[in-house]
C-alpha cells in the first residue's frame, strides 16, 4: 500500500528574493520544492542559514527521494490559508511569526486559522520567540496546545538536538521507522525501537544521562541509535536504583528515609529499569528520587 505523501509547508517572508523568480511571479503563490532547493543551493540566506540547511536536509533525505514528502514554501500566511481553503492540506507547518511590519494580532489570527482548518503540527519558528508566550498562552489556543511548539530560529542551546535538527527528525519520523537524523551536526542512523518510539525520545536519554555523556556515548556506539545501542548507552552508567516489589516503588539510594523504611529491595541498573518498566519511569525516578509504579 502506498503511504500518503506528507505535505510540509514553510511560511517565511525572508526567503532570498531573486529577480528571475520575481519576474515569474514565483513568490506570489506556493513555492515548489525545486524552487526552494534552487534558492537553498544558490542564494545567500543571511540570518536564515539554519532554515536553508533544513531545506537541503529535507530535500536530500531518503523519504523525500522516495516521494513520501512534499515541501512547499509561502512568503505570506494568506497564501498558505488560500491553499488550505482549496484542500491542499499540510501535515507539518513551519510558521514564521513576523511578516513585514510586525502585527502580533494578525500573526496570532493566521496561526489560529491554520490550526483550526488543518490537523497539521505547527512549529512556530521565530527570531522573537521570547516575546510570544503572552500571545500563545491564551485560552483559544488551549485546544490546539498539543499541535504546536515554539522555537527560536537557529537556537543551538535547546537540547541534545538543535532546533532545526528537532524539526528535521519530526518530519522524517512521520514517514519512516528508520532514517538519518542530525545531532549536533553529526549524521545519526536512527531506528525506532522498544525504548525510543520517536527520534525525539532521544530527549529522554538526554535528561537521564546528561548531554555531555550522551554525546560521548553516541560517538562510542558509532552514531547509530537502535535498541542495542540504547542499551549500551544505558549500560555505560554504573549507578543503581532500588526497587521494592512489595511497595511497588523505585527509589534512588540517596533517599535515606525511604531506605530505612524498606526492608527488602532489589538493586537495578538503568538498563534493567528501562527493560522492566520504561525510559519514562527511569527518568521519573531520577528526577524525583522516587517513583510509584
Amino acid at each position, binding site marked *: 500500500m502506498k503511504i500518503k505523501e506528507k505535505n510540509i509547508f514553510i511560511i517565511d517572508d525572508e526567503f532570498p528574493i531573486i529577480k528571475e523568480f520575481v519576474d515569474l511571479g514565483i513568490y506570489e503563490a506556493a513555492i515548489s520544492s525545486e524552487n526552494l532547493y534552487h534558492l537553498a543551493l544558490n542564494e545567500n540566506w543571511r540570518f536564515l542559514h539554519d532554515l536553508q540547511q533544513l531545506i537541503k536536509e529535507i530535500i536530500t533525505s531518503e523519504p523525500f527521494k522516495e516521494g513520501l514528502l512534499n515541501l512547499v514554501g509561502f512568503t505570506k500566511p494568506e497564501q498558505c490559508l488560500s491553499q488550505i481553503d482549496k484542500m491542499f492540506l499540510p501535515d507539518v507547518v513551519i510558521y514564521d511569526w513576523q511578516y513585514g511590519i510586525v502585527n502580533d494580532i494578525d500573526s496570532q489570527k493566521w496561526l489560529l486559522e491554520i490550526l483550526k482548518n488543518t490537523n497539521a503540527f505547527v512549529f512556530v519558528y521565530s527570531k522573537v*520567540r*521570547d516575546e*510570544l*508566550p503572552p500571545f*500563545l*498562552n491564551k485560552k483559544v489556543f488551549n485546544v490546539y*496546545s*498539543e499541535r504546536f*511548539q*515554539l*522555537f*527560536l530560529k537557529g*537556537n543551538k*542551546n*535547546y*537540547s541534545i538536538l538543535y*532546533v532545526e535538527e*528537532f524539526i528535521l527528525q519530526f518530519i522524517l519520523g512521520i514517514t519512516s521507522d528508520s532514517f538519518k537524523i542530525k545531532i549536533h551536526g553529526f549524521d545519526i542512523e536512527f531506528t525506532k525501537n522498544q525504548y525510543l518510539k520517536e527520534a*525525539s525520545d532521544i*530527549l529522554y536519554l*538526554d*535528561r*537521564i*544521562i*546528561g*548531554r*555531555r*555523556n550522551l554525546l560521548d556515548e553516541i560517538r562510542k556506539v558509532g552514531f547509530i541509535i537502535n535498541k542495542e545501542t540504547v542499551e549500551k548507552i544505558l549500560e555505560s*552508567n554504573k*549507578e543503581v536504583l532500588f526497587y521494592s516489589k512489595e*511497595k511497588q*516503588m523505585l527509589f*534512588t539510594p*540517596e*533517599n*535515606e*528515609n*525511604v531506605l530505612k*523504611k*524498606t526492608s527488602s529491595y532489589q538493586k537495578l541498573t538503568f538498563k534493567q529499569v528501562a527493560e522492566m518498566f520504561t525510559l519514562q519511569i527511569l527518568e*521519573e525516578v*531520577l*528526577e*524525583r*528520587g*522516587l517513583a*510509584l509504579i
Partner: protein
Amino acid sequence: MPRLTEFHIKSLQPLKSPFEGNPRKIADDLLEGEKHNDEFIQFIHDGYEDKHPQQFVPVSIEELEKHNIHKGGKYPEKCFLWVIDESSIKIIWEKTPNERRKASRPDRPYVCHTNITGSGKAYIGGEMYFCDNDNIYVNFSSDRYGTTASEENKIMAIQYIKDCGYKNVIRTDENI
C-alpha cells in the same frame, strides 16, 4: 513569618547550583525554557509573606488517596513546586504554563524548579500539596535542588516551612 535566619542557614547550607551533586548532570543540562524566571515572577509566591500561593488549589481526600500523594506520589494538577533560596521559601503551581519549555519538554509544557530561581542557586527544593484535610504534604522531589540534599538539610527545610507559619506539614518520605 521569618526570612531565613542564621539558625536556618546553618543547617541548610550550602547554596547549590542546579544539579550540583548530581553525578550525571550539570547546570548546562538545563533545557530550553528551564532557565528563565522573568515570565513567572508574577506567579512566584514568597512563603514569607503569607500562607497560600495565589494559584492555590487544594487536593481532595479522594485525590490524595488515588495518587498516593501522602506516600510520595505525583499529581501535577495540584502540585506546587518550592525552593528555599538565599532569603526565603518560594512557591509556584507546577502547571503554570511555560510555552518555551514545551519545545524541549512537549510532555511538560509548564514550569520547573529552575523557573523559580532563574537557574540560580538555592538551598533545597521539592514539591508540596495543600490538602483538604489541612495537611501539607512535602517532599524533596527536585533533581535540581532536592534529591541530593542531606538529611540535615531536609530536617531544617521542614522546620523553616513550619516557622513560616505553615501548619500540619508532613514529610511524605516518612509515610512510605
